[in-house]
């Protein structure tokens, strides 16, 4: 079986041949084409049959685009706002004002770090209570001026720890959910990488919920489920499959509204194309939502959340 590294090697080989081809005047174009076709086929094989666990790894890929990578490609004139006005400015959550084409929007996003220093600053994308309070503040601000809210979800979960608990992380998540339930403006949430439990949902209770093709959204990490339910931390693959945490699964369960396609190999293979696809979908969804009368939109949101759940009637 080929894995991503084999594909990268093959890709490098083709690149080498191309250089030889142009330098030495030897015609290798036929060989190159054959190899390219082979690469394409292998890639398709690999990524169209990604297991759920492999998708988890893709969603957490260290080279995967993070919130800021999308923000700079999708929005213009992003203007970041800071602080919860009470105790601090959580760098795991980015919030600000921006334009999507001509439309004004507010953006609330979870941001992971790419380097150790960045991760120290951003707590590996795990928001603390002040982060959720900042999110609420900016969402409320946006609603006050009729500005739609777009949230980008990418977190392993809320930051667990003494300080978080002292400052009531659970209460902060609950209040954020309450704010999202009552915002009168259109809201769209996109899971761009990891949608980890309550810490993700806190900014995700939107009118429309989208997922990138290789992102995940789950009540508990596969590692957590393996440890708690299987009592065996090595059974993460089974846990990942059982949780139905991938975008295609969640779409077919009716729990999300759409899946945004990624380039073959994952979003990290082509930031531009992924961002462009996401931008198109955001524009489309936002136009649709904005066209609806406010009361009708709010009633639809209430109905959507009121009806989530599967149960059956017994005698």
């Amino acid at each position, binding site marked *: 079986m080929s894995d991503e590294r084999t594909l990268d090697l093959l890709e490098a080989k083709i690149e080498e041949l191309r250089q030889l081809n142009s330098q030495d005047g030897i015609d290798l174009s036929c060989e190159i084409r054959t190899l390219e076709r082979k690469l394409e086929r292998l890639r398709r094989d690999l990524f169209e049959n990604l297991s759920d666990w492999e998708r988890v790894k893709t969603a957490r890929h260290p080279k995967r685009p993070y919130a800021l990578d999308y923000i700079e490609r999708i929005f213009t004139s992003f203007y970041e706002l800071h602080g919860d006005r009470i105790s601090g400015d959580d760098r795991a959550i980015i919030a600000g004002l921006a334009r999507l084409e001509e439309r004004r929007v507010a953006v609330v996003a979870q941001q992971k770090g790419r380097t150790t220093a960045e991760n120290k600053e951003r707590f590996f994308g795990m928001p603390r209570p002040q982060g959720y309070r900042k999110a609420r503040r900016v969402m409320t601000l946006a609603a006050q001026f009729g500005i739609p809210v777009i949230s980008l979800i990418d977190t392993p979960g809320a930051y667990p*720890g003494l300080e978080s*608990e002292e400052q009531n992380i659970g209460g902060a998540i*609950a209040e954020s959910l309450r704010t999202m339930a009552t915002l009168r403006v259109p809201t769209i949430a996109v899971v761009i990488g990891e949608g980890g439990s309550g810490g993700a949902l806190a900014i995700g209770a939107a009118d429309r919920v989208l997922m990138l093709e290789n992102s995940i959204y789950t009540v508990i990490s596969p590692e957590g489920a393996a440890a708690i339910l299987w009592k065996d931390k090595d059974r993460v693959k089974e846990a990942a499959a059982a949780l139905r945490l991938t975008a295609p699964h969640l779409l077919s369960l009716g729990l999300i509204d759409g899946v945004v396609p990624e380039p073959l190999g994952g979003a990290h293979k082509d930031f531009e194309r992924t961002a462009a696809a996401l931008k198109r979908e955001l524009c489309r969804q936002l136009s649709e939502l904005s066209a609806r009368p406010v009361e009708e939109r709010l009633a639809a949101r209430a109905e959507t959340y009121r009806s*989530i759940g599967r149960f059956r009637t017994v005698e």
Partner: protein
Amino acid sequence: MAIFKERQYLRVQVDKEPDDSLWMKCKSCGELVFKRRVRENNNICPKCGDYFFLTAMERIASLVDDGSFEEISKPIVSDDPLGFVDRRPYTERLEESRAKTGLNDALIVGHAMIDGVPIVIAVMDFRFVGGSMGSVMGEQICHGIDAAIELRRPFVLVSSSGGARVQEGLFSLLQMAKTVAARARLADAGLPFISVMTYPTSGGVQASIASLGDVIIAERGAMIGFAGRRVIEQTIAQQELPQDFQTDSFALEHGQIDRVVKREDLRDELVTLLGFFAETVR
């Protein structure tokens, strides 16, 4: 490892004791105590004063006016939406919990009166898959809130839950958003919501409906928090957690709840509060 030194809860499974035994052993003081005396005493050990778990029905009986409770729970059970199997099928766990408790899921909801004030009350039962919130609990809570809005009554929720019902995957996570949205409608209708947190109120329940009470009361000995000690120690190793971490007094000290109340005083507190709010409800 004792997390709560002075107030460590008793995990006595009252219903696992053979029915013909008249005595039970208190795991806190080790005394053999007369079972009926314990039951009559709100499941508080008559020797040492420590608490035994209350089932949802026992809790309701301890709070509402005699004979006033009328259950309105929908006749629904979990549909196992993911076909979830870990070491054993989720359906088997459900079946076992149903047999053990006689309940359809981990929450009972109904109409009742407290000192003559009509309310809607919903109570979790920890024996049923750890009081976890899945599709059924979410629906029953919303059903209770709908009833409160329709009848213009205050809503009282008594929580006892380890958090989300992970076997229902994202369905269970989204119950947080579902119950919170219902709670927001209750506020729009101008009706009060009193949240009572008991041992334990944690995870997805604490991070949603339970933390949004207009007034939040914790029963003495409650454990309140989002991520437990074990999760914290696994995620960010070596953090020193204080002895009183996530206890009732911890939550009170950090401004997360309004009051800590002894079990035997809980009804009186509700009488006072509901009497106060009753004027605005009409």
